[in-house]
Protein backbone atom coordinates (compact mmCIF):
# COMPACT_ATOMS: atom_id res chain seq x y z
CA UNK A 1 0.00 0.00 0.00
CA UNK A 2 1.41 3.39 -0.97
CA UNK A 3 2.43 5.56 1.97
CA UNK A 4 0.15 8.55 1.58
CA UNK A 5 -1.08 10.83 4.39
CA UNK A 6 -4.40 8.93 4.26
CA UNK A 7 -2.65 5.90 5.76
CA UNK A 8 -2.61 7.72 9.06
CA UNK A 9 -6.36 8.29 8.92
CA UNK A 10 -8.57 6.66 11.49
CA UNK A 11 -9.46 3.89 9.06
CA UNK A 12 -5.87 2.70 8.63
CA UNK A 13 -5.02 -0.59 10.38
CA UNK A 14 -3.49 -0.76 13.86
CA UNK A 15 -0.92 -3.40 14.84
CA UNK A 16 0.53 -3.67 18.33
CA UNK A 17 3.80 -5.45 19.02
CA UNK A 18 3.91 -6.41 22.68
CA UNK A 19 4.74 -8.89 25.35
CA UNK A 20 2.02 -10.58 27.42
CA UNK A 21 3.65 -9.79 30.79
CA UNK A 22 4.67 -6.24 29.94
CA UNK A 23 2.74 -3.55 31.79
CA UNK A 24 3.84 -1.06 29.13
CA UNK A 25 2.12 -3.25 26.53
CA UNK A 26 -0.98 -3.46 28.73
CA UNK A 27 -1.19 0.32 28.82
CA UNK A 28 -1.56 0.44 25.05
CA UNK A 29 -3.98 -2.50 24.91
CA UNK A 30 -6.14 -0.86 27.57
CA UNK A 31 -6.07 2.52 25.84
CA UNK A 32 -7.07 0.95 22.52
CA UNK A 33 -9.97 -0.85 24.25
CA UNK A 34 -11.08 2.32 26.05
CA UNK A 35 -11.10 4.10 22.70
CA UNK A 36 -13.01 1.20 21.14
CA UNK A 37 -10.33 0.64 18.51
CA UNK A 38 -9.75 -2.68 16.74
CA UNK A 39 -6.16 -3.79 16.47
CA UNK A 40 -4.00 -6.73 15.48
CA UNK A 41 -1.72 -8.01 18.24
CA UNK A 42 1.70 -9.60 17.71
CA UNK A 43 3.32 -11.30 20.70
CA UNK A 44 7.08 -10.77 20.76
CA UNK A 45 9.58 -13.22 22.22
CA UNK A 46 11.78 -10.75 24.11
CA UNK A 47 14.67 -13.18 24.02
CA UNK A 48 14.48 -13.35 20.23
CA UNK A 49 12.98 -10.18 18.85
CA UNK A 50 11.44 -10.17 15.39
CA UNK A 51 13.04 -8.27 12.52
CA UNK A 52 9.78 -6.40 12.16
CA UNK A 53 9.99 -5.07 15.74
CA UNK A 54 13.63 -4.08 15.34
CA UNK A 55 12.77 -2.28 12.11
CA UNK A 56 9.91 -0.39 13.80
CA UNK A 57 11.88 0.54 16.93
CA UNK A 58 15.56 0.77 15.98
CA UNK A 59 16.39 3.22 18.77
CA UNK A 60 15.22 1.19 21.77
CA UNK A 61 14.36 -2.23 20.24
CA UNK A 62 11.59 -2.60 22.80
CA UNK A 63 7.90 -3.33 23.10
CA UNK A 64 5.33 -1.92 22.91
CA UNK A 65 5.32 -0.49 19.42
CA UNK A 66 2.08 0.53 17.76
CA UNK A 67 2.10 0.59 13.98
CA UNK A 68 -0.65 2.71 12.44
CA UNK A 69 -1.02 2.77 8.69
CA UNK A 70 2.55 1.52 8.37
CA UNK A 71 4.07 4.18 10.70
CA UNK A 72 5.63 3.11 13.97
CA UNK A 73 4.99 4.65 17.40
CA UNK A 74 7.21 3.45 20.27
CA UNK A 75 7.11 4.36 24.00
CA UNK A 76 3.83 3.71 25.78
CA UNK A 77 3.14 7.22 27.14
CA UNK A 78 3.85 8.69 23.71
CA UNK A 79 1.56 6.11 22.08
CA UNK A 80 -1.26 6.99 24.48
CA UNK A 81 -0.95 10.70 23.66
CA UNK A 82 -0.88 9.80 19.95
CA UNK A 83 -4.16 7.91 20.32
CA UNK A 84 -5.73 11.02 21.85
CA UNK A 85 -4.37 13.22 19.04
CA UNK A 86 -5.48 10.82 16.29
CA UNK A 87 -8.93 10.06 17.83
CA UNK A 88 -9.74 13.31 19.64
CA UNK A 89 -13.50 12.80 19.64
CA UNK A 90 -13.38 9.38 21.31
CA UNK A 91 -13.00 8.99 25.09
CA UNK A 92 -10.11 11.46 25.63
CA UNK A 93 -7.32 10.15 27.85
CA UNK A 94 -5.75 13.52 28.60
CA UNK A 95 -7.68 16.25 30.36
CA UNK A 96 -8.69 19.32 28.36
CA UNK A 97 -7.09 21.92 30.61
CA UNK A 98 -3.40 22.73 30.02
CA UNK A 99 -2.53 22.73 33.74
CA UNK A 100 -4.22 19.36 34.31
CA UNK A 101 -2.38 17.97 31.29
CA UNK A 102 0.93 19.13 32.74
CA UNK A 103 0.05 17.41 36.02
CA UNK A 104 -0.84 14.17 34.23
CA UNK A 105 2.46 14.28 32.34
CA UNK A 106 4.40 15.00 35.54
CA UNK A 107 2.90 12.03 37.40
CA UNK A 108 3.30 9.69 34.42
CA UNK A 109 6.97 10.54 34.44
CA UNK A 110 7.06 9.95 38.20
CA UNK A 111 5.47 6.52 37.68
CA UNK A 112 8.12 5.50 35.16
CA UNK A 113 11.13 7.28 36.64
CA UNK A 114 10.59 6.72 40.38
CA UNK A 115 7.80 4.36 41.40
CA UNK A 116 8.37 1.70 38.75
CA UNK A 117 12.14 1.38 39.36
CA UNK A 118 11.58 1.36 43.15
CA UNK A 119 9.12 -1.53 42.84
CA UNK A 120 11.55 -3.31 40.54
CA UNK A 121 14.32 -2.85 43.08
CA UNK A 122 12.19 -4.52 45.79
CA UNK A 123 11.60 -7.42 43.49
CA UNK A 124 15.25 -7.84 42.56
CA UNK A 125 16.80 -7.62 46.03
CA UNK A 126 16.91 -9.20 49.46
CA UNK A 127 17.71 -8.31 53.03
CA UNK A 128 18.83 -4.74 53.80
CA UNK A 129 18.85 -3.71 50.14
CA UNK A 130 15.26 -4.82 49.87
CA UNK A 131 14.28 -2.99 53.07
CA UNK A 132 15.72 0.21 51.62
CA UNK A 133 13.84 -0.40 48.37
CA UNK A 134 10.58 -0.99 50.23
CA UNK A 135 11.02 2.30 52.10
CA UNK A 136 11.49 3.99 48.74
CA UNK A 137 8.26 2.47 47.40
CA UNK A 138 6.39 3.60 50.49
CA UNK A 139 7.75 7.13 50.14
CA UNK A 140 6.61 7.21 46.52
CA UNK A 141 3.16 5.83 47.32
CA UNK A 142 2.85 8.35 50.15
CA UNK A 143 3.39 11.18 47.64
CA UNK A 144 0.61 9.86 45.43
CA UNK A 145 -1.65 9.27 48.45
CA UNK A 146 -1.08 12.89 49.50
CA UNK A 147 -2.20 14.14 46.09
CA UNK A 148 -5.34 12.00 46.31
CA UNK A 149 -6.06 13.18 49.85
CA UNK A 150 -5.24 16.91 49.80
CA UNK A 151 -3.73 17.78 46.46
CA UNK A 152 -4.37 17.84 42.75
CA UNK A 153 -6.53 14.70 42.70
CA UNK A 154 -8.56 15.35 45.84
CA UNK A 155 -12.09 13.95 45.80
CA UNK A 156 -11.65 12.10 42.51
CA UNK A 157 -12.59 8.51 41.93
CA UNK A 158 -9.92 8.19 39.27
CA UNK A 159 -6.90 10.38 38.50
CA UNK A 160 -8.73 11.38 35.33
CA UNK A 161 -11.87 12.34 37.29
CA UNK A 162 -15.09 10.35 36.98
CA UNK A 163 -13.54 8.26 34.22
CA UNK A 164 -10.08 6.82 33.81
CA UNK A 165 -7.51 8.91 32.00
CA UNK A 166 -3.87 8.79 30.97
CA UNK A 167 -2.49 8.65 34.49
CA UNK A 168 -4.89 5.88 35.56
CA UNK A 169 -3.77 3.79 32.60
CA UNK A 170 -0.09 4.44 33.28
CA UNK A 171 -0.21 3.87 37.05
CA UNK A 172 -2.81 1.16 36.89
CA UNK A 173 -1.02 -1.00 34.37
CA UNK A 174 1.85 -1.79 36.65
CA UNK A 175 0.15 -1.48 40.01
CA UNK A 176 -1.28 -4.99 39.72
CA UNK A 177 2.31 -6.17 40.03
CA UNK A 178 2.32 -4.82 43.58
CA UNK A 179 0.06 -7.62 44.81
CA UNK A 180 1.99 -10.18 42.77
CA UNK A 181 5.34 -9.02 44.15
CA UNK A 182 3.95 -9.00 47.68
CA UNK A 183 2.98 -12.63 47.24
CA UNK A 184 6.31 -13.64 45.71
CA UNK A 185 8.67 -11.69 47.98
CA UNK A 186 6.59 -11.82 51.16
CA UNK A 187 6.96 -8.06 51.51
CA UNK A 188 4.08 -5.66 52.22
CA UNK A 189 3.96 -2.92 49.58
CA UNK A 190 0.44 -1.50 49.48
CA UNK A 191 -1.03 -1.38 52.94
CA UNK A 192 -4.73 -0.51 52.75
CA UNK A 193 -4.39 1.31 56.07
CA UNK A 194 -1.32 3.31 55.10
CA UNK A 195 -2.54 4.11 51.58
CA UNK A 196 -6.35 3.94 51.74
CA UNK A 197 -7.08 6.18 48.76
CA UNK A 198 -4.51 4.54 46.51
CA UNK A 199 -5.86 1.15 47.56
CA UNK A 200 -9.46 2.21 46.79
CA UNK A 201 -8.44 3.66 43.42
CA UNK A 202 -6.62 0.47 42.44
CA UNK A 203 -9.57 -1.66 43.39
CA UNK A 204 -11.93 0.49 41.30
CA UNK A 205 -9.47 0.48 38.38
CA UNK A 206 -9.06 -3.30 38.41
CA UNK A 207 -12.86 -3.75 38.47
CA UNK A 208 -13.32 -2.07 35.08
CA UNK A 209 -14.30 -4.39 32.23
CA UNK A 210 -11.61 -3.13 29.86
CA UNK A 211 -8.97 -3.58 32.56
CA UNK A 212 -10.07 -7.13 33.38
CA UNK A 213 -9.89 -7.87 29.66
CA UNK A 214 -6.32 -6.59 29.53
CA UNK A 215 -4.51 -7.75 32.65
CA UNK A 216 -3.39 -11.39 32.55
CA UNK A 217 -4.73 -13.87 35.09
CA UNK A 218 -3.02 -13.48 38.44
CA UNK A 219 -1.76 -17.08 38.56
CA UNK A 220 0.08 -16.56 35.25
CA UNK A 221 1.61 -13.38 36.64
CA UNK A 222 2.60 -15.17 39.85
CA UNK A 223 4.26 -18.02 37.99
CA UNK A 224 6.14 -15.57 35.80
CA UNK A 225 7.20 -13.41 38.73
CA UNK A 226 8.44 -16.42 40.72
CA UNK A 227 10.59 -17.50 37.79
CA UNK A 228 12.10 -14.08 37.32
CA UNK A 229 12.79 -13.54 41.03
CA UNK A 230 14.50 -16.90 41.19
CA UNK A 231 16.71 -15.92 38.28
CA UNK A 232 17.49 -12.43 39.61
CA UNK A 233 18.42 -13.70 43.07
CA UNK A 234 20.49 -16.48 41.56
CA UNK A 235 22.41 -13.89 39.58
CA UNK A 236 22.85 -11.60 42.58
CA UNK A 237 24.33 -14.51 44.48
CA UNK A 238 26.64 -15.46 41.62
CA UNK A 239 28.11 -11.99 41.42
CA UNK A 240 28.34 -9.18 38.92
CA UNK A 241 30.21 -11.02 36.17
CA UNK A 242 27.67 -13.81 35.94
CA UNK A 243 24.90 -11.25 36.12
CA UNK A 244 26.05 -9.24 33.13
CA UNK A 245 26.56 -12.41 31.11
CA UNK A 246 23.08 -13.57 32.01
CA UNK A 247 21.56 -10.16 31.30
CA UNK A 248 21.06 -11.34 27.76
CA UNK A 249 18.96 -14.26 29.03
CA UNK A 250 15.42 -14.51 27.66
CA UNK A 251 13.53 -14.23 30.92
CA UNK A 252 13.23 -10.54 31.67
CA UNK A 253 11.74 -9.07 34.80
CA UNK A 254 8.27 -7.61 34.55
CA UNK A 255 7.14 -4.03 34.99
CA UNK A 256 10.13 -2.07 36.23
CA UNK A 257 12.81 -0.92 33.84
CA UNK A 258 15.50 -0.19 36.45
CA UNK A 259 18.66 -2.23 36.93
CA UNK A 260 18.75 -4.29 40.13
CA UNK A 261 21.19 -2.92 42.68
CA UNK A 262 23.26 -6.09 43.02
CA UNK A 263 23.24 -7.16 39.36
CA UNK A 264 23.33 -4.66 36.51
CA UNK A 265 20.40 -5.92 34.51
CA UNK A 266 18.45 -3.57 32.27
CA UNK A 267 14.89 -4.76 32.38
CA UNK A 268 13.67 -4.68 28.84
CA UNK A 269 9.94 -4.29 28.88
Amino acid at each position, binding site marked *: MEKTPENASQAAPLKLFGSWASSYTHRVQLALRLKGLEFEYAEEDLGSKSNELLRHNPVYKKVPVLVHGGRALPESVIILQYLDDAWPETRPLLPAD*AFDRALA*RFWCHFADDKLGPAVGAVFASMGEDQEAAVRQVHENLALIEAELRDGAFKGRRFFGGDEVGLLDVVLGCGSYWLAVFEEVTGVRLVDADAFPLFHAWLRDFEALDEVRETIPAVDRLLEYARGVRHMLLGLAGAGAAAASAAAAAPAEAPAAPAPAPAADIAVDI
Partner: protein
Amino acid sequence: MAADLRPEVVLLDFWVSPFGQRCRIALAEKGVPYEYREEDLLNKGDLLLRSNPVHKKIPVLLHAGRPVCESLAIVQYVDEAWPDAAPPLLPRDDDPYARAQARFWADYIDKKIYDCQTRLWKLKGDAQEQAKKDLIEVLETLEAELAGKPYFGGDNFGFVDVALVPFTSWFPTYEKLGGFSVEKCCPKIVAWAKLCRERESVAMALTDPDKVYEFVQFLQSKFGVKQ
Protein backbone atom coordinates in the same frame (compact mmCIF):
# COMPACT_ATOMS: atom_id res chain seq x y z
CA MET B 1 -8.57 45.85 48.63
CA ALA B 2 -4.86 45.62 47.93
CA ALA B 3 -4.00 44.76 44.38
CA ASP B 4 -2.43 41.36 43.82
CA LEU B 5 1.09 42.39 42.94
CA ARG B 6 2.26 38.85 42.30
CA PRO B 7 3.71 38.50 38.81
CA GLU B 8 1.56 36.30 36.59
CA VAL B 9 4.41 34.00 35.53
CA VAL B 10 7.46 33.13 37.63
CA LEU B 11 10.27 30.75 36.67
CA LEU B 12 12.31 29.19 39.48
CA ASP B 13 15.58 28.31 37.83
CA PHE B 14 19.36 27.93 38.09
CA TRP B 15 21.64 29.89 35.79
CA VAL B 16 23.48 27.01 34.09
CA SER B 17 20.64 24.46 34.03
CA PRO B 18 19.90 23.23 30.49
CA PHE B 19 16.44 22.22 31.76
CA GLY B 20 15.72 25.73 33.00
CA GLN B 21 17.00 27.14 29.72
CA ARG B 22 14.46 25.09 27.78
CA CYS B 23 11.72 26.92 29.71
CA ARG B 24 13.31 30.34 29.18
CA ILE B 25 13.53 29.69 25.44
CA ALA B 26 9.90 28.54 25.25
CA LEU B 27 8.63 31.59 27.17
CA ALA B 28 10.71 33.94 25.01
CA GLU B 29 9.58 32.28 21.77
CA LYS B 30 5.97 32.77 22.86
CA GLY B 31 6.58 36.33 24.01
CA VAL B 32 5.30 35.56 27.52
CA PRO B 33 6.59 38.03 30.12
CA TYR B 34 7.87 36.35 33.28
CA GLU B 35 9.93 36.91 36.39
CA TYR B 36 13.13 34.88 36.55
CA ARG B 37 14.17 33.78 40.03
CA GLU B 38 17.61 32.31 40.63
CA GLU B 39 17.52 29.50 43.17
CA ASP B 40 20.37 28.64 45.52
CA LEU B 41 20.51 24.88 45.07
CA LEU B 42 22.59 24.45 48.23
CA ASN B 43 20.00 26.30 50.25
CA LYS B 44 16.65 25.76 48.56
CA GLY B 45 14.00 28.35 49.23
CA ASP B 46 10.55 27.77 50.67
CA LEU B 47 8.72 28.53 47.45
CA LEU B 48 10.72 25.92 45.51
CA LEU B 49 10.23 23.27 48.17
CA ARG B 50 6.50 23.97 48.38
CA SER B 51 6.09 24.11 44.60
CA ASN B 52 7.97 20.91 43.84
CA PRO B 53 7.71 18.80 46.98
CA VAL B 54 8.18 15.58 45.02
CA HIS B 55 11.60 16.31 43.50
CA LYS B 56 12.60 19.65 45.07
CA LYS B 57 14.19 20.59 41.74
CA ILE B 58 14.22 23.46 39.32
CA PRO B 59 12.85 24.42 36.89
CA VAL B 60 9.40 25.19 38.23
CA LEU B 61 7.01 27.46 36.37
CA LEU B 62 4.43 29.24 38.50
CA HIS B 63 1.45 30.52 36.55
CA ALA B 64 -0.96 32.54 38.69
CA GLY B 65 0.62 30.77 41.64
CA ARG B 66 0.09 27.23 40.32
CA PRO B 67 3.29 25.21 39.86
CA VAL B 68 4.21 23.26 36.75
CA CYS B 69 7.26 21.01 37.15
CA GLU B 70 9.64 19.21 34.78
CA SER B 71 11.05 21.08 31.83
CA LEU B 72 9.35 19.22 28.97
CA ALA B 73 5.99 19.36 30.76
CA ILE B 74 6.60 23.11 31.25
CA VAL B 75 7.44 23.64 27.57
CA GLN B 76 4.30 21.79 26.48
CA TYR B 77 2.30 23.75 29.05
CA VAL B 78 3.61 27.07 27.69
CA ASP B 79 2.66 25.91 24.18
CA GLU B 80 -0.86 24.95 25.28
CA ALA B 81 -1.59 27.77 27.74
CA TRP B 82 -0.68 30.47 25.20
CA PRO B 83 -2.02 28.78 22.04
CA ASP B 84 -2.51 32.00 20.09
CA ALA B 85 1.07 33.11 20.62
CA ALA B 86 3.05 32.11 17.58
CA PRO B 87 4.93 29.94 16.88
CA PRO B 88 3.54 26.54 17.94
CA LEU B 89 6.36 24.60 19.55
CA LEU B 90 4.80 21.20 18.96
CA PRO B 91 3.45 20.31 15.51
CA ARG B 92 -0.20 21.20 15.12
CA ASP B 93 -3.13 19.03 16.19
CA ASP B 94 -3.80 17.90 12.64
CA ASP B 95 -0.51 15.98 12.49
CA PRO B 96 -0.60 13.45 15.34
CA TYR B 97 2.35 11.45 13.98
CA ALA B 98 4.61 14.52 13.82
CA ARG B 99 3.60 15.35 17.41
CA ALA B 100 4.46 11.81 18.50
CA GLN B 101 7.83 12.02 16.77
CA ALA B 102 8.58 15.34 18.48
CA ARG B 103 7.71 13.87 21.88
CA PHE B 104 9.77 10.76 21.14
CA TRP B 105 12.95 12.67 20.33
CA ALA B 106 12.56 15.14 23.21
CA ASP B 107 12.10 12.15 25.52
CA TYR B 108 15.17 10.44 23.99
CA ILE B 109 17.23 13.55 24.69
CA ASP B 110 15.93 13.53 28.28
CA LYS B 111 16.75 9.86 28.77
CA LYS B 112 20.27 9.99 27.35
CA ILE B 113 22.19 13.27 27.31
CA TYR B 114 22.18 14.33 30.96
CA ASP B 115 23.14 10.85 32.12
CA CYS B 116 26.01 10.56 29.61
CA GLN B 117 27.39 14.01 30.35
CA THR B 118 27.23 13.43 34.09
CA ARG B 119 29.14 10.18 33.79
CA LEU B 120 31.64 11.94 31.52
CA TRP B 121 32.62 14.53 34.17
CA LYS B 122 32.11 12.39 37.27
CA LEU B 123 33.92 9.21 36.32
CA LYS B 124 37.42 8.26 35.24
CA GLY B 125 39.14 5.45 33.36
CA ASP B 126 37.01 2.84 31.56
CA ALA B 127 33.75 4.21 32.95
CA GLN B 128 34.53 7.66 31.56
CA GLU B 129 35.56 6.14 28.23
CA GLN B 130 32.21 4.33 28.11
CA ALA B 131 30.38 7.60 28.89
CA LYS B 132 32.19 9.25 25.98
CA LYS B 133 31.28 6.38 23.61
CA ASP B 134 27.65 6.52 24.75
CA LEU B 135 27.52 10.29 24.30
CA ILE B 136 28.97 10.10 20.79
CA GLU B 137 26.43 7.40 19.92
CA VAL B 138 23.59 9.60 21.15
CA LEU B 139 24.85 12.60 19.18
CA GLU B 140 25.25 10.45 16.06
CA THR B 141 21.70 9.17 16.45
CA LEU B 142 20.46 12.75 16.70
CA GLU B 143 22.63 13.72 13.72
CA ALA B 144 20.93 10.99 11.65
CA GLU B 145 17.50 12.16 12.80
CA LEU B 146 18.29 15.77 11.89
CA ALA B 147 19.48 14.62 8.45
CA GLY B 148 19.17 17.45 5.91
CA LYS B 149 16.54 19.47 7.76
CA PRO B 150 17.28 22.96 9.11
CA TYR B 151 15.57 22.10 12.43
CA PHE B 152 14.51 18.80 14.00
CA GLY B 153 10.89 19.76 13.37
CA GLY B 154 11.59 20.60 9.72
CA ASP B 155 11.44 24.17 8.52
CA ASN B 156 10.47 25.62 11.86
CA PHE B 157 12.16 25.77 15.26
CA GLY B 158 10.20 23.56 17.62
CA PHE B 159 9.93 21.22 20.59
CA VAL B 160 12.91 18.97 19.88
CA ASP B 161 15.14 21.94 19.09
CA VAL B 162 14.15 23.52 22.42
CA ALA B 163 14.85 20.23 24.20
CA LEU B 164 18.36 19.84 22.78
CA VAL B 165 19.78 23.30 22.18
CA PRO B 166 20.77 24.14 25.80
CA PHE B 167 23.12 21.15 25.79
CA THR B 168 25.05 22.64 22.87
CA SER B 169 26.81 25.01 25.31
CA TRP B 170 28.23 21.86 26.86
CA PHE B 171 29.85 20.64 23.61
CA PRO B 172 33.25 22.27 24.31
CA THR B 173 33.14 20.69 27.79
CA TYR B 174 32.42 17.26 26.29
CA GLU B 175 35.36 17.78 23.93
CA LYS B 176 37.76 18.76 26.70
CA LEU B 177 36.71 15.90 28.97
CA GLY B 178 36.45 13.26 26.28
CA GLY B 179 39.20 14.35 23.92
CA PHE B 180 37.08 14.29 20.78
CA SER B 181 35.57 16.78 18.35
CA VAL B 182 31.78 17.13 18.19
CA GLU B 183 32.11 18.85 14.82
CA LYS B 184 34.04 15.89 13.39
CA CYS B 185 31.47 13.31 14.46
CA CYS B 186 28.35 15.45 14.06
CA PRO B 187 28.83 18.38 11.68
CA LYS B 188 25.08 18.76 11.03
CA ILE B 189 24.36 19.10 14.74
CA VAL B 190 27.05 21.78 15.05
CA ALA B 191 25.59 23.67 12.06
CA TRP B 192 22.10 23.34 13.55
CA ALA B 193 23.39 24.70 16.89
CA LYS B 194 24.80 27.77 15.10
CA LEU B 195 21.49 28.32 13.34
CA CYS B 196 19.57 28.09 16.63
CA ARG B 197 21.90 30.55 18.34
CA GLU B 198 20.83 33.17 15.78
CA ARG B 199 17.45 33.22 17.52
CA GLU B 200 17.27 35.79 20.30
CA SER B 201 15.44 33.40 22.63
CA VAL B 202 18.33 30.93 22.40
CA ALA B 203 21.16 33.48 22.49
CA MET B 204 19.71 35.02 25.66
CA ALA B 205 19.15 31.71 27.42
CA LEU B 206 22.31 29.70 26.77
CA THR B 207 25.31 29.89 29.08
CA ASP B 208 28.66 30.81 27.61
CA PRO B 209 30.55 27.53 26.99
CA ASP B 210 33.58 28.75 28.97
CA LYS B 211 31.36 29.32 32.00
CA VAL B 212 29.86 25.86 31.57
CA TYR B 213 33.35 24.36 31.67
CA GLU B 214 34.23 26.38 34.77
CA PHE B 215 31.04 25.12 36.40
CA VAL B 216 31.89 21.49 35.56
CA GLN B 217 35.37 21.96 37.01
CA PHE B 218 33.72 23.31 40.16
CA LEU B 219 31.49 20.21 40.30
CA GLN B 220 34.49 17.97 39.80
CA SER B 221 36.35 19.55 42.70
CA LYS B 222 33.20 19.36 44.83
CA PHE B 223 32.80 15.65 44.12
CA GLY B 224 36.49 14.90 44.48
CA VAL B 225 37.00 14.01 40.83
CA LYS B 226 40.65 14.26 39.79
CA GLN B 227 40.96 16.90 37.08
